[in-house]
């Protein structure tokens, strides 16, 4: 998307308004998907489950509650952390393609930037945890840091593997750009061996998504049955609702990233729809379906079927098993390149 190239002011305006709109849209769909997720998990456990609008009610209720700052906390940091978390997850949405459209600021940042931006919300959670001075929050913050360090490696290997293969086959200037990845879907570049490798990398990314979204079995940092809510133990009212929103948006962004990397297809070319509004609507709906499917397998199904890992098990899953799977996947993609190209 060429963002009005020359006029700096107009550009700035688009970025500011676009960011605000994206955060609102991301929050809306994030909460909607959280409601769907809770309903699906309840059904899988033989329960009726809360209505799909439940997360909206939760946030509305949290905004009505008192906002307590504990006496032992560092007030400015304690209050700043929720805003930092929400703003950084919002800025994540600027660089990830949503609704079948290119990312709003896709020209200015690529997947590597997204990898770095993904760290900031976790850091904000950690800061908030340490600032709240509760021993439970401190334990949660330490766990969050450890698990963050463990899923970075497999995530980076997956992104590198895809971008390397695209750069190897095509003459794209920057294979890390989201638009390049969308232009050359990874599956169309690979032979049979490479497809197995890409499937392994997809599996890795699915498991990393669970950790990024801090869901069972990787919710060790928030574990409410074990360390009483961990990082968020001292948060209430408005601050808690901001963390809730950033958590919801981050899950949506992470699933969108998986969709952008592995299923960047649009439905409108296949159906032969070319008129701009119709094609946009079809692509947006198709995107929502893709996110729903990925969310079902990566978050709901795993959440309903598993118990929580211990922190040592969670890190070894990421650092050993998932890094190994991603590396084997990358190796197979490389072997595939030797055979077929």
């Amino acid at each position, binding site marked *: 998307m060429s963002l009005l190239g020359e006029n700096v002011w107009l550009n700035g305006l688009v970025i500011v308004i676009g960011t605000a709109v994206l955060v609102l849209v991301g929050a809306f769909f994030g909460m909607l998907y959280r409601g769907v997720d809770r309903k699906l998990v309840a059904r899988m456990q033989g329960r009726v489950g*809360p209505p799909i609008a*439940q997360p909206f009610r939760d946030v509305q209720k949290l905004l009505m509650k008192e906002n307590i700052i504990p006496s032992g906390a560092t007030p400015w940091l304690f209050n700043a952390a929720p805003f930092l978390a929400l703003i950084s997850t919002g800025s994540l949405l600027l660089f990830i393609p949503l609704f079948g459209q290119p990312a709003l600021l896709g020209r200015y940042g690529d997947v590597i930037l997204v990898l770095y931006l993904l760290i900031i919300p976790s850091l904000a959670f950690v800061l908030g945890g340490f600032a709240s001075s509760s021993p439970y929050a401190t334990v949660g913050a330490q766990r969050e840091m450890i698990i963050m360090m463990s899923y970075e490696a497999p995530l980076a290997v997956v992104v590198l593997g895809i971008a390397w293969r695209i750069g190897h086959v095509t003459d794209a200037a920057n294979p890390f750009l989201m638009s390049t990845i969308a232009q050359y879907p990874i599956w169309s570049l690979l032979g049979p061996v490479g497809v197995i490798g890409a499937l392994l990398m997809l599996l890795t990314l699915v498991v990393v998504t669970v950790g990024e979204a801090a869901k069972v079995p990787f919710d060790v940092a928030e574990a409410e049955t074990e360390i009483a*809510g961990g990082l968020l133990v001292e948060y209430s009212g408005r601050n808690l609702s901001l963390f809730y929103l950033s958590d919801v948006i981050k899950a949506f962004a992470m699933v969108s990233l998986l969709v952008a990397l592995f299923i960047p297809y649009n439905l409108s070319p296949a159906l032969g729809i070319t008129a701009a509004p119709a094609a946009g609507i079809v692509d947006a709906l198709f995107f929502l379906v893709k996110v729903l499917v990925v969310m079902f397998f990566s978050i709901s199904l795993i959440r309903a079927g598993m118990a929580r890992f211990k922190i040592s098990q969670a890190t070894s899953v990421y650092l050993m098993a998932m890094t190994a799977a991603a590396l084997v996947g990358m190796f197979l993609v490389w072997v595939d390149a030797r055979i077929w190209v």
Partner: protein
Amino acid sequence: MNLKAFNRALWVYHLNTGSCNGCDIEILAVLTPRYDVERFGIMLVGSPRHADVLLVTGPVARSMEDSVRRVYAQTPDPKLVMVIGNCGIEGDVFHEAYSLVGPIDQIIPVDVYVPGCPPRPEAIIHGVVMAWAKLERLVKKEVV
């Protein structure tokens, strides 16, 4: 105050002040697939800071008195307190014990009493409905 959103998203914190665990097991039964209170938006949370309702069980043992007061103070307003079981209401079989400072309403203000030893899950759900009704009355009188 939008009462519907508040009523339909009650997060509860479970505080045991020295109960025999009977009431506590019934509270857990309310969350199981058979009774599933999550369908009303009720969720068990791990921290009083997140809670809207304190579910208090047990006659208050002397060593718990300070903790009960602190947990009540740590819960953000607006909040409700539900006492589950006879022990918290009037001491029940422990009413003569030397180590008790209860019942609970002598220590913190209580909104809903759910009697029973232990109360059935249906009674606990009925107690939540009473809490909704009380909130509605308070809002009509514009107390909250």
